């Protein structure tokens, strides 16, 4: 009889049932979608970071920021061998130059060993990030200054321009020197070899390179071919893609660390050390120890890195986590209040009904159970509908799969160096890649549990209020109120 009565009451009072259930449904759908989106943007952030710093990298150690002007300026020095002057006086120039990141000092290679020796560090690997800039073009005969041309290397990326009747191109790409023997941590830990092979221990000292898939496509590079790095031809042994996302990998070209060091003529240095802690709990302690041992370095954890992610990904993150969370809390609160008010007014309207039931012997508890049961079922209805809408929304997001861009801004400070088009590849370290990440809304089982839980508790809250109201009805007064 309990369920017959319950069913009849709910179907007999459709309007109230629909309003309460719809309110809860909207709220719960919002909670589900916002939750999934939050997880989605977090995944996207992780992806963005992993493509740059590699999977399993807990900490990165980089050199200290340099004051502007401390680093040597970027300039091409065209010496005697820099170009060939034709008979008509036009000088044809082509020079490739390999430079370390500006605005940040490099670390001595011994730093890697120092870090490896710290308690709680499971592995550490150094990488040298470089930018290869190729200047090529023609200069007309310049009577006064003749042989020395000066062009800003930090000009517009891949840009070109006219120059006093001549023409030139500056072509830049990023090069990462990695330890071919240690790739379990670092940028190459998050790549998949799509063609050829990865760098191997034997590659140390060899002029070989692995190339990012996107870069290889746009520049017609294939395995077996060569790519010019710092004036030396590197044999391409493999093509890699990001294994964690659809994004580009951390760098355009990867070469053995020792080769990179000698080509760039920087000595035995690295720009970043990638550190994996032995345990997740130990990360903070390891970070502190490294900071103590190497006071001149910048040590960043994943969460430090996460805060450096900018672009529409970061807007999406704050939109979802702030607005989304508040909106779903607000709507949920409104829905619960609505459910409570409707239940109370429903009980008031049914004063005579409950008075009658008490008069014919129903206990208070039995009446309360009936009222609470009705609210609960309404809540469950709302929960079920909300779940359906929420899952539909998640499905829609995953089908549409909007792309958002992410630009980790670890080197944004370098932009203060000014220069035309500052912030271009000339400045960037490994993190220069602006990548498009597909936003997904992953569904976690606990969200489903939470949605049902929310629905049930909203029903319980409404039922508690309604039941309390019904319990206070004295049967005599209940009957008198309408008689």
């Amino acid at each position: 009889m309990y369920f017959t009565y319950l069913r009849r009451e709910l179907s007999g009072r459709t309007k109230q049932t629909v309003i309460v259930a719809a309110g809860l449904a909207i709220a719960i759908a919002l909670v589900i979608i916002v939750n999934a989106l939050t997880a989605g943007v977090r995944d996207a952030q992780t992806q963005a970071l992993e493509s740059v710093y590699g999977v399993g990298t807990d900490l990165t150690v980089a050199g200290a920021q340099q004051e502007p002007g401390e680093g040597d300026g970027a300039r091409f020095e065209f010496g005697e061998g820099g170009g060939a002057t034709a008979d008509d006086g036009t000088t044809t120039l082509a020079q490739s130059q390999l430079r370390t990141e500006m605005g940040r000092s490099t670390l001595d290679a011994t730093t890697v060993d120092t870090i490896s020796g710290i308690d709680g560090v499971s592995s550490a690997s150094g990488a040298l990030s470089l930018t290869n800039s190729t200047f090529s073009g023609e200069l007309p005969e310049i009577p006064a200054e003749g042989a020395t041309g000066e062009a800003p290397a930090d000009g517009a990326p891949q840009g070109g321009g006219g120059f006093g009747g001549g023409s030139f191109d500056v072509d830049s790409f990023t090069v990462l020197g990695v330890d071919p023997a240690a790739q379990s941590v670092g940028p190459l830990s998050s790549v998949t070899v799509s063609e050829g092979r990865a760098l191997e221990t034997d590659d140390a000292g060899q002029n070989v390179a692995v190339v990012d898939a996107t870069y290889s496509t746009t520049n017609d590079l294939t395995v077996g071919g060569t790519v010019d790095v710092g004036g030396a031809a590197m044999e391409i042994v493999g093509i890699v893609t990001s294994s964690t996302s659809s994004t580009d990998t951390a760098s355009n070209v990867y070469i053995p660390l020792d080769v990179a060091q000698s080509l760039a003529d920087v000595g035995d240095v690295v720009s970043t050390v990638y550190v994996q802690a032995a345990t997740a709990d130990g990360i903070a302690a390891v970070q502190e120890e490294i900071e103590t041992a190497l006071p001149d370095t910048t040590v960043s954890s994943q969460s430090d890195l996460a805060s450096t992610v900018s672009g529409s990904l970061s807007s999406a993150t704050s939109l979802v986590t702030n607005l989304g969370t508040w909106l779903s809390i607000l709507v949920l609160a409104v829905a619960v209040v609505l459910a409570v008010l409707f239940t109370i007014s429903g009980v008031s309207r049914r004063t005579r009904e409950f008075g009658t039931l008490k008069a014919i012997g129903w206990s208070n508890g039995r009446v309360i159970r009936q009222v609470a049961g009705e609210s609960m079922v309404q809540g469950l209805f709302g929960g079920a509908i909300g779940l359906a809408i929420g899952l539909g929304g998640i499905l829609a997001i995953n089908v549409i799969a909007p792309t958002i861009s992410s630009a980790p801004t670890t080197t944004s400070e370098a932009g203060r160096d000014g220069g035309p088009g500052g912030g271009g590849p000339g400045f960037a370290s490994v993190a220069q890649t602006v990548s498009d990440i597909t936003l997904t809304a992953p569904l976690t089982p606990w969200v489903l549990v939470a949605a049902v839980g929310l629905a049930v508790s909203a029903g319980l809250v409404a039922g508690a209020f309604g039941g309390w109201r019904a319990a206070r009805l004295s049967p005599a007064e209940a009957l008198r109120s309408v008689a």
Partner: protein
Amino acid sequence: MTMTEPHIDAPNEPTTPLYRLADVSKTYTQKKRVVKPLVGVDLEIARGDFVTIQGPTGGGKSTLLQLLGALDRPTSGRLTLGDTDLAAASNAALGSARAREIGFVFQGFNLIPTLTASENVDMGLEPLGLADAERRARVAEALAHVGLADRADHRPGELSGGQQQRVAIARAIAKRPRVLLADEPTGNLDESMRDEILDLLQALNDGGLTLIVVTHDSAVARRASRRLRLEKGTIRDITR
């Protein structure tokens, strides 16, 4: 058609009254205003009697019926139903008396509009904790008793006023109470329906069920074996 059996009272005390009221008063205090609908009522009601209570509006008839119906306690005085002291009983004991011993019929029928006739009758059995089969049998029996076996699946809205009141009576008697209390049971009915209800009540009384009926209607009172008049909170026997 078998009679829905009322409680069989113990044969060794056949003359014990069903209700005993001694100096029963009821006072309502509402916003400093004190209303005394019942003042020192002394009354005994015998088993198997058919009693009507008449009197002017506001005379305290409903108040008295609510005390008899264990819906409320008197402010002072003693009130027993059989062996149960309704003046001193706990809420649970009052609830149990309502569930088992007392059938209540209202002027406005007070059926639940979303439930069918048989489901409405079933509501009266809910507190008894009977087995399903027993419940179904009692519901069918009570509906048959009021002549509505063929209307078991109708909602109140699909029934006439007289039929609705008959469903309400079926709901009241399905539990096999000691007494049936009715507050203006024909107040909302036209004459033919009124007679239909009166015939039914008469038949129930003939079957041994004690009836206490509050009414304005002298046609109802004429059927009673005992007529009471309640005026200004005091009761008078006007049977003659």
